């Protein structure tokens, strides 16, 4: 069965730590860290059993590894991270954590995890051949954890690949580390930090996707920039340069070969330069757009429609309409969209364009205020409100697959009328 989904906009493995007892840690993966953290904290259903003890809550995501090109990849990495003692991705000679006990079944018992052990294994996993060339990056949201990471990094002789950026995003409003893709920063960025600011959708790729779509739709592929052969429409897999003004289109294999000029033994490039505009490109960005073009019709549609709606400043209503229209929309995407909305709302807030928002906006306002308070509480408190909205809007599409009746039931009914 062929893969039928584009490269996910976001998937991460996270290191969860109890804010109460720092020794208690958990490793998981999710396409939506905000939602997932709420689950862990019991705000919404679905948290892992290991994290449902009240005395350990709230949990915080201290460190996440993002950029997984597929959910399978993320799950594999997660499992390897959870089971560093037995994963085959770690060659035996470099394994640093060994099982000391056996379970009744005879299987090796997973050793107790600590932040330091998980960080050291994370460091190791980022170096093993299985993952070393994946387009990953590591983000730290907690200074303690980051210090432990730095400490371990110094202790280890072999550094992780340069291609894996280490990004720190501390609640203390420190200057944020380089964020590739440059998600839009609102004026509230000082108080917004951590997972809530992560782009879990394709928003940042919107322009790129739009350009690619236009190129393909109007069959402007032309000739491959590299091999100069004519690119017949829909007769191959072509990559398009993401840089705004560049419409260089190439065979994917040509581009990969170009990227791998200096590393012929490797199979998958990590980054390279556009043959036309000489822009430094990451392979994952190129391919993500390509996968969206090839397999992500729905996602592209949504992305672009949202864009149009944005112009009209009726983001919420339009977006919901869009979401309702799409039949197969699943929860993840829905939530992604909602989170996206919220961000947009945040952006709009200063402009005072909240006329249509009504009650919703006020709710958000309140949560925002609380966010300004304490770092940890901000994350946890702002979520409930947001969550409420999400669940409200979620219920309709998720329950009934886009039946009009159901849509009418949703809270957005009024909004539609207003529209």
């Amino acid at each position, binding site marked *: 069965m062929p893969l039928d989904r584009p490269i996910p906009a976001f998937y991460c493995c996270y290191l969860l730590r109890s804010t109460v007892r720092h020794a208690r840690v958990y490793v998981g993966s999710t396409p939506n860290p905000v939602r997932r953290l709420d689950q862990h904290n019991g705000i919404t259903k679905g948290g892992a059993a290991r994290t449902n003890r009240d005395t350990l809550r709230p949990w915080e995501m201290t460190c996440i590894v993002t950029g997984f090109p597929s959910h399978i990849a993320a799950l594999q990495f997660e499992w390897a991270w959870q089971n560093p003692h037995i994963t085959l991705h770690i060659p035996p*000679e470099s394994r640093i954590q060994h099982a000391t006990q056996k379970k009744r079944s005879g299987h090796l018992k997973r050793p107790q995890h600590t932040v330091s052990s998980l960080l050291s294994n994370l460091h190791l996993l980022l170096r093993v051949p*299985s993952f070393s060339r994946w387009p990953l990056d590591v983000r730290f949201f907690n200074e303690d954890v980051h210090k432990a990471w730095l400490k371990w990094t110094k202790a280890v002789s072999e550094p992780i690949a340069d291609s894996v950026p280490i990004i720190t995003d501390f609640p203390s409003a420190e200057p944020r580390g380089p964020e590739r893709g440059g998600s839009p920063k609102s004026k509230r960025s000082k108080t917004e930090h951590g997972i809530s600011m992560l782009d879990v959708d394709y928003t940042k790729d919107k322009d790129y996707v739009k350009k690619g779509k236009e190129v393909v739709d109007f069959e402007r592929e032309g000739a491959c920039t590299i091999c100069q052969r004519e690119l017949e429409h829909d007769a191959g897999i072509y990559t398009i340069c993401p840089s705004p003004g560049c419409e260089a289109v190439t065979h994917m294999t040509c581009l990969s070969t170009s990227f791998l000029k200096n590393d012929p033994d490797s199979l998958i490039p990590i980054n390279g330069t556009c043959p036309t505009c000489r822009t430094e490109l990451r392979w994952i960005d190129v391919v993500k757009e390509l996968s969206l073009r090839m397999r992500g019709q729905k996602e592209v549609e949504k992305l672009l429609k949202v864009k149009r709606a944005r112009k009209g400043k009726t983001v919420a209503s339009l977006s919901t309409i869009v979401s309702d229209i799409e039949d197969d929309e699943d929860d993840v995407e829905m939530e992604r969209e909602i989170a996206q909305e919220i961000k947009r709302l945040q952006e709009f807030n200063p402009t005072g364009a909240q006329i249509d928002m009504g009650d919703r906006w006020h709710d958000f306002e309140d949560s925002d205020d609380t966010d300004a308070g304490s770092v940890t509480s901000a994350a946890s408190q702002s979520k409930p409100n947001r969550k409420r909205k999400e669940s409200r809007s979620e219920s309709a599409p998720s329950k009934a697959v886009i039946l009009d009746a159901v849509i009418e039931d949703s809270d957005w009914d009024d909004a539609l009328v207003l529209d």
Partner: protein
Amino acid sequence: MASKEFLIISSSPPKAFTTYGMSSSPVLPSPNEVFAKKIPVFRTGSRASPIPQNAIASFTSASSLLQSDSLHVVDIIRSLQSGPEDDGTLQASRNKSSARNQSRKPSVGNKSGAEGKVARKPQKTTRKDNAATDGAAAKKPRKAPMKEVDEEMREHGAVKTKAPSKSRAKKLGTGDVTSKGKAARKPKPKKSDGDNQTKLPNAQVTKVLISTEEGHHVKSQDNHGTTEIDPVAGSLDYGLAEAVRRRTNWTPPPLPIKPPSLTTPGPADLLEANPFLGDLKSSEEKDNGFQDLLGSFGFSKLDDRATDKILLEEGGTRKRKLIELVKTNGSALTKAPKPKAPKKRPKTITEQATSAYAEEENMYGKQPPLMQYFSLDATDRVTSDGFKIPSKARSKSPVKRGKGTAEAPILLSPESALKQVGNQDFVFGTSSQLAREESPGFLRDIHAAMQASNELDRDDPFTSPVLLEGKSKVLPSMKRSLWSAAARDGTGQLLDVEMADVVGSPAMQKQLHTAASLDGESSHPRKDDDEDPVQDPVETPIGTESIEESSKHVGPVEAAIRLELLSSPLKNIENSDSPAEPSVQNNVVSLKKPTKAHASKEKNSGRSKSSKRPEFSAYTMVQLAKEIASYHFKPIKSRDQMIALLEKCWDAKQQRSALGNLATNLPVSSPKKLASVLPPSSQPQITSPKRPRGRPRKDNDATPSPKRKTKTASLANALSRARKTQKKAEALDEISDSDVAQTPSPPRRHPSQIGTPPLPLQLSSSASVDSRELSPTTSQIRLFKYITAAVKTTPPATDPSSPSWYEKMLLYDPIIIEDLTVWLNTGALEKAGWDGEVDPKEVKKWCESKSVCCLWKENLRGGSRSRY
């Protein structure tokens, strides 16, 4: 008549006792008026004091008192009924039993309430009345002469209310008082007509019995009783209340205790009382009758009781088992069930199994108390319960004896039992397997050989024998060829007597020495038994030092070979191989006689010596890596570790015995274990012939290069790997084939060798095919290059919906290993210049080395992934 009557009487008393436990409603005389009046009286009276005694006797409720009193009446009634029985009909006795049953039933119900009793009593009374009306009428007049006052009173009572009921009530209530009268009556009934007489005597007897129980006073009290009775009877028409009181007072304390054994005590008392009664009565008018009666009682009672009991039981069982059972348990018959119970106890299997131990405890612990208990009872009622007691004693005693005597010798202390078990030889296998082995010695020999060969595997001594057995059966035909193969040295020489000796003597130390001396070349099993079994002639680096020594013993050809070997450096396997092969051919014919053992020993000695062990320290890292790979170890970074490991492996190879090759060893021991623990090799076996067999496998199996590498690596175990040409291997094959028939195989070896044949085949084949590849790692690297090339060179897909494999990878699609493997093996690799097929595991390794996300189509549970 009299005699008959006496018999009846004797029988009746026990019945009365049995019924005593019963409510015996019939006793109550007057259904209508009497009851209404009596009931309150009884209750009050009974409650006051008498209850406890009576209650203890059998019944807990006040009704019991009534019943107890009424019992006598019942007895009378029964006696009336039994009258006809006396004539000798069993049915009559049965009727009695039935009557008892009936009476018992009501008793059960009565316990709850007195009314029930009352209601039932009248019925019986009526019956009795009907039957006895005539008799009663007759009695009364008769009584008058005997005891005027009493009789008169009774008559009056009877006249006043209901003649039968009154009389009975009086009798019951004033049982003690009336006893005299009854006694007086006794003779009368005898005299009277059969029906009436029977009734009367029974009643009398019962009364007598009761009286005896109550006290001896009654007997002597005749006069007193009469006097006393009179006023009582006069004051109270029925006189029941007072009678009850008196009775309770009169009744001796032991009675309450006895009542549980109601049936028994009665007779005992009777026996005791009989003499008195006899004396008393003898003096009196009725003496004659009484004496006869008493005398008859003593004897007859015993007999009757037995019969009665039997009858009772029978009747009860037949007609109304349930009721009887309930009563017996609840009331007085407890004794009977007790003795029975121990006899009947069903044994569970576990009980039986542990009986030997459990009973000992019982002997000292449980039984004594029970015995004491019984014995006490027995002493009390020696005569009456006599039969019961002995039965108990018998039942228990025989059990004890049997267990004690028979089992005592058998029983062993846990320690000794364990010892015995330890000494026992267990052979596991199916019954058929075990049965087929003619001699136990054979199995033992095999086992010993196995143990000797696998010291490592001692943990699982049982696994090997099974395998051996199964295989031994299957492979009789194989034996010869296998043996012949095994009998060959690496050089093709035949191994002589020593082999047999070694086999025979499992002693490990000897083996160690011999192993050192013997040839480890071919036989030494390598860490990976699977692939290793191929013992390479190549591997055997012939010790240069030993050659000289060996040359003395060895024939000319061998000597020449050895000289060549000497000249050739250890590393050159080629030399060893090439010379060896020709030598084999030649030797086969010529060298049979020459002491092969010596030769092999010499060779081995050469090897075993440290000097012959290749100086791994001098190896380059690449060489070391190859060597490590040859042992199927994963690459090790540390040079020191590599050297240490190689040395260990080398030693292990040298030491390991031919038996180690046995298939049985393979499953048990993991390569690492083997490496760590080196078993001394008992016998040198020549596996060279096996190689040729192995070849076909490689061809068949499109095994990935790594396997080949490993195989090859194994071939060149100690020394750098050589090039074995297929030609050479073929030559070896031919030689081996020819050899097969020639050498007779020692029987003992068969089992051990059975498992080996398939493995060697694979190895040899791999070795020959992959001769070019030096080490698994290198070959793997090479293979990976080919795979990479194959993937990269595929032209880009023209249909975006079906990208090529490379495009999938570029898109970060998870790669399904099986599919990619199929694609590689169906032409892609061939195009890339790789001649062979790839194992999915290798593909997985390749993917991981390239950071390609890969996964198996089938998960661990056998299912396939539906979504990606």
